[in-house]
């Protein structure tokens, strides 16, 4: 058994456990922390696939910036413990079986296809890492226009947020 193969299962299990905790935890801050665990585990999986840059950006942007905001809001609002409700009839009789069916279907097709094995064997099998240079060449030459349009879109979103925040004063 190769090392990347072993590590894949470690991080995949961590991600799944984190995702389950995210839903099951009753304290909002525990849910937020579980989400961070999922993000970091995903970053490790990207790393195993040889996508170093994506892994680092995943941690910087999602775990380091987006989730900090989540945690901040939870801390500031001092959100209390969630209330437990009885299962709604819809969720119990239609939702749960459908979700299970979807999961089984996905597992079935992944098990049959080559993709699952390739992912599990990680970068060791493909033998190439997506270099940051190649990525930036793609981003700043081939896809320059969509990139610029996206940045303008984000700028507009920031301005919109500012206007909305200022209106209250």
């Amino acid at each position, binding site marked *: 058994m190769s090392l990347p193969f072993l590590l894949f299962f470690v991080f995949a299990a961590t991600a799944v456990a984190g995702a389950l905790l995210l839903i099951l935890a009753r*304290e909002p*801050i525990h849910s937020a922390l579980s989400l961070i665990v999922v993000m970091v585990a995903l970053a490790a999986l990207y790393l195993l696939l040889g996508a170093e840059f994506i892994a680092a950006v995943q*941690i910087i942007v999602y*775990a*380091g910036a987006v989730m*900090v905001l989540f945690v901040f809001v939870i801390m500031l609002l001092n959100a209390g413990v969630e209330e437990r409700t009885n299962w709604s009839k819809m969720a119990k009789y239609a939702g749960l079986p459908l979700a299970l069916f979807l999961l089984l279907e996905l597992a079935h097709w992944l098990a049959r296809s080559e993709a699952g094995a390739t992912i599990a064997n990680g970068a060791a099998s493909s033998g190439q890492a997506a270099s*940051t240079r190649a990525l930036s060449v793609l981003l700043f030459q081939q896809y320059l226009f969509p990139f610029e349009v996206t940045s303008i879109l984000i700028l507009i979103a920031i301005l919109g947020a500012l206007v909305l925040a200022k209106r209250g004063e």
Partner: protein
Amino acid sequence: MEFVAQHPILVVSVVKIAVLLFLALTALAYLTWFERKVVAHIQSRWGPYYVGAHGLLQPVADGLKFLFKEELTPSGADKLIYLLAPFLALSLALTTLALIPFGPATINILGHPTNLMIANVDISVLFLFAITSIGVYGVALAGWSSNSKYPLLGSLRSSAQMISYEVSMTISVVGVLLVAGSLNFNEIILRQRGNFFLHWNVIRFDHGAFPQIVGFLCYFTAAIAETNRVPFDLPEGETELVAGFHTEYSSLKFAMFFMAEYANMITVSCLATILFLGGWLSPLPDSWTWQMYLPGAGLLALGIYLAYDTVRYMRGIARPQLAVVTLMALGTGAVCLLPAVASAMLGPFWFLGKVLFILFFYVWTRGTLPRFRYDQLMSFGWKLLLPVSLVNLIVTSFVIVYPLLVKHG
């Protein structure tokens, strides 16, 4: 065992991590001694003096004190997160050290050649920022989980400050990345080679480069704020917030926050050394081969001075204590003079020398500057530091791209 034999990198890494952790934790302990001594001399005091010769055993005494103090958990605290926060802070602060290259030499561990760093990643800079960006959680969660008002206020201030200054810090580093054209620490250092210290990024002015002196100043200012140190230590402003986010922590858990702060200081200084001051490169020309005996000679000189000090000034128990330190300095100095060791030691010698120089600046700032007010801190970060580092970035990229534009029309 077979699995381990197939992956020698595991064994080598574990050995290197153990050695680095031992050295780093010792260095952390003595950094507190160094800081107290320097600040004391700035204020015309002696500083730690009675525990060991020159107070050299003070860190050990402090450590033991932390170990034996009572552990308190405030009522109504979120136990899990309350425990998690100090671990998160310290482990993340120490993890960043894995990315730092200490020297160019190749050494043999258990028959496997390896270099003086734990992880040589292609994008070291990004990984370092990724790890430090998670470091905010240690502070934020500590304040929240304590279930107490001063820690909460302290941690909110601290997280806001860390997030604000992280922006300027990252942007001031981008200038260096443009000049170096790489994200890997070793390559960034190697690009600064040649012409004494005139090729170090902080003053480099040749074709396709622009001196990063403004970037360096921005980086260092932001770094002080990022590590919550004077004059930006608002989160712990004891006159208003008791002790900020770690008010409710006692004993070893408090010690962990304390160590995390010093570990962050060391990491930030290492990064400044690598990016701006040429890392392990020597300020002397490479052709002067005698410089490899400098570390050994320096330690021997220190040993001789300490011997004089022992005989002339020390009395009572302090005399044998300092004698042991003297023998250690002389012994290490003699080992460092062996040619094989001397050539391997040269890189770490310059690297650690530069790091110590920056750490001295840190302590010097603490000894001289008063604390900012909170609104001053925020407006300084966003209205002065960020624009200046942005202008530095724009000017640098223009200087680098302009020759290319002229050439290609």
